[in-house]
């Protein structure tokens, strides 16, 4: 089983007209390939980098031929595969407070289980860790590896949005100042990588990786936009998650590009045929927050059973590394400078949005013709959930938009209460139906 298995069962493996593989199978294969490769990295003499989805300089790491591990993906998989409770219990026995992020605890549990991951892969210890400042917990998490494995930690500080209406035109003095700082750190990182790997940095290789990323970004932006159609061809909080797994793990590679092309063609085809994710799409909703990986399918089922679909979510932006948010592509003639510039923009336009998300949500409501917003608060994640209630209040009052607030956790099943969540979801759909009926009645008057 792989991270792909949290996706839909609805589309069974289909061969395309010319006999080529479908995206789902291709994606599954790529994930398995990646994990297998990770498990044998040290044997092959490859170095392993632990990185996070929001801000990771993966392009530079690829230039040094690092094998990438994503502890966030390890942790979410432990949720999907039901080993999270065991890992979390081990971490709490070790001394971690119940209030600490459950991803961190699942990772500590993995460490305390001899790095044996439920996927069957023995996770390698890191030779380098990159923790961006876009989530402060990343930094505390990396300190744990520093402590346990003696891992060199590189904190990549990416200055984010300073306030809600912060606008940074590319090339403006403010953008230049922030990008200069990021570039300085990237140069520092390159020196570090040379030390660790013994290799010399190859600027051309960086440019090559960036070319692949550019193509993946172009396709990803289209894929996100496809869901503006009615009916939405995929559910951003179920299918979207499987796309993201490949997007992150294979970012900047020809295989990643190939996958995205396949995916793009499939979804374009669905749009052309008017095939929706849900047979009878009744309500389109924006999802704000993270998935509940331990009950991902169930959560979506609760909505889809009422004909509700999620064409968009802010999760797809930030957990895909903000690939859609800069609207700019790498200038491969100045690969390093451009990497810094685009990384800064991605942070400011996409990845630091949770703190000011009322703007983006309003935009998404319009773009995706949405009927409401579902806020999913996470008990152990302050990045996502601290001001959700305030955000919701603002959006509901300003836009008169129906919103639902539900709460659980990323992977800790103790915070999932099926009856309570179902109750709230059912009540929300009753609310939406009533609203639609009333609007209909008013229309007839």
């Amino acid at each position, binding site marked *: 089983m792989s991270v792909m298995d949290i996706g839909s069962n609805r589309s069974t493996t289909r061969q395309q007209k010319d006999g080529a593989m479908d995206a789902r199978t291709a994606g599954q294969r790529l994930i398995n390939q990646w994990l297998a490769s990770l498990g044998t990295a040290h044997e092959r003499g490859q170095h392993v980098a632990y990185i996070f989805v929001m801000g990771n300089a993966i392009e530079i790491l690829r230039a040094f031929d690092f094998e990438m591990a994503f502890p966030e993906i390890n942790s979410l998989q432990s949720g999907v595969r039901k080993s999270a409770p065991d890992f979390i219990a081990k971490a709490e026995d070790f001394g971690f407070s119940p209030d600490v992020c459950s991803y961190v605890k699942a990772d500590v549990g993995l460490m305390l289980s001899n790095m044996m991951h439920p996927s069957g892969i023995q996770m390698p210890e890191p030779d380098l860790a990159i923790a961006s400042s876009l989530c402060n917990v990343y930094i505390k998490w990396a300190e744990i590896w520093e402590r346990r494995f003696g891992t060199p930690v590189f904190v990549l500080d990416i200055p984010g949005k300073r306030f809600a209406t912060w606008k940074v035109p590319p090339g403006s003095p403010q953008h230049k100042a922030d990008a200069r700082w990021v570039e300085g750190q990237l140069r520092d990182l390159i020196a570090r990588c040379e030390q660790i790997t013994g290799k010399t940095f190859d600027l051309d290789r960086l440019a090559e990786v960036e070319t692949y990323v550019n193509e993946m970004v172009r396709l990803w932006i289209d894929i996100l936009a496809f869901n503006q159609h009615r009916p939405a061809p995929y559910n951003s909080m179920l299918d979207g998650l499987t796309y993201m797994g490949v997007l992150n793990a294979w970012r900047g590679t020809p295989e990643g590009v190939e996958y995205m092309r396949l995916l793009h063609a499939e979804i374009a085809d669905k749009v052309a045929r008017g095939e929706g994710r849900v047979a009878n799409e009744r309500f389109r909703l924006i999802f704000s927050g993270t998935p509940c990986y331990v009950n991902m399918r169930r959560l979506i089922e609760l909505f889809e059973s009422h004909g509700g679909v999620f064409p968009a979510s802010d999760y797809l932006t930030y957990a895909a590394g903000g690939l859609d948010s800069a609207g700019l592509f790498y200038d491969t003639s100045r690969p390093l400078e451009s990497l810094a510039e685009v990384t800064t923009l991605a942070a400011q336009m996409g990845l630091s949005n949770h703190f000011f998300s009322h703007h983006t949500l309003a935009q998404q409501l319009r773009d995706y013709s949405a009927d409401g917003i579902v806020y999913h608060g996470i008990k152990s994640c302050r990045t996502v959930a601290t001001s959700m209630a305030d955000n919701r209040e603002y959006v509901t009052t300003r836009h008169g938009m129906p919103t639902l607030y539900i709460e659980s956790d990323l992977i800790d099943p103790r915070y999932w209460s099926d009856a309570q969540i179902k109750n709230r979801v059912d009540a929300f759909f009753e609310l939406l139906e*009533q609203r639609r009926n009333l609007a209909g009645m008013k229309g007839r008057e």
Partner: protein
Amino acid sequence: MEYVAGIDVGSTQAKGVILDEQGALISKAIIDMETNMGTAAEVVFQHVLASANLPARAIAFTVATGYGRYRVTFGDRQVTEISCHARGALAEFPGTRTVLDIGGQDTKAIRIGDSGEVIDFAMNDKCAAGTGRFLGAASFALEMPLSELGPLALQSTRPVRITTTCTVFAETEIIGHLAKGHLPEDVLMGMHYSIATRCASLVRRVGLTPEVTFSGGVSRNQAMVVLLQEVLGTPLNHSAQAQFMGAIGAALYALDNIHLGRRSEHSLKEGAR
């Protein structure tokens, strides 16, 4: 004459009401919950039928609500208690635009529109503080029945501030205050105040819009009524029918079904109470 039934299967009690096709309340029944929600639903249904002197086949449509709504085998439709409380409150107090329901285990605040449709809702169902359970801790610590807590609290002149937010530690804190010599009524008032502020917070989350109707078992506690009015700064509607509001709302939804999609604008007839 056609009849409809509303069955509310909650965590502590099961309630049933029967209305006639004009919305007049014919009978009502309430029982304490058994372990089997399906059985409890059937038992309360039998009681309410007996009370109305009607056979089961006389009921044209039954709507089930409450946490156990899917276990009601004879239910024709399930509607959440959020929607049902909204309808029930509006039927009893037509000026209602906000409902605060404090139950034994959960608390809900609901904002409703002119036709009783739910505009927004907020629930406290994870934590017992701010629900009737908090008073349960007081009842235990003071060795007094729940029904006496309100009247005693109202005698307080200097309420003690309760800081614990956990029902489990509430008992310890109460005993601590009593040991220091604080009067039981002052400690009790502090507890009530604690619940009131938490509930007020929920109401503000959905947006306080007059009139506010207070329902649920705890609404029969006079001290809570007084305090909530003070904390919210607005008078509250409350009635002796508080516990049946969900079942009545469910029955009104049932009435919709037999009136071919027209929303029923019935309010409960005086004589039937």
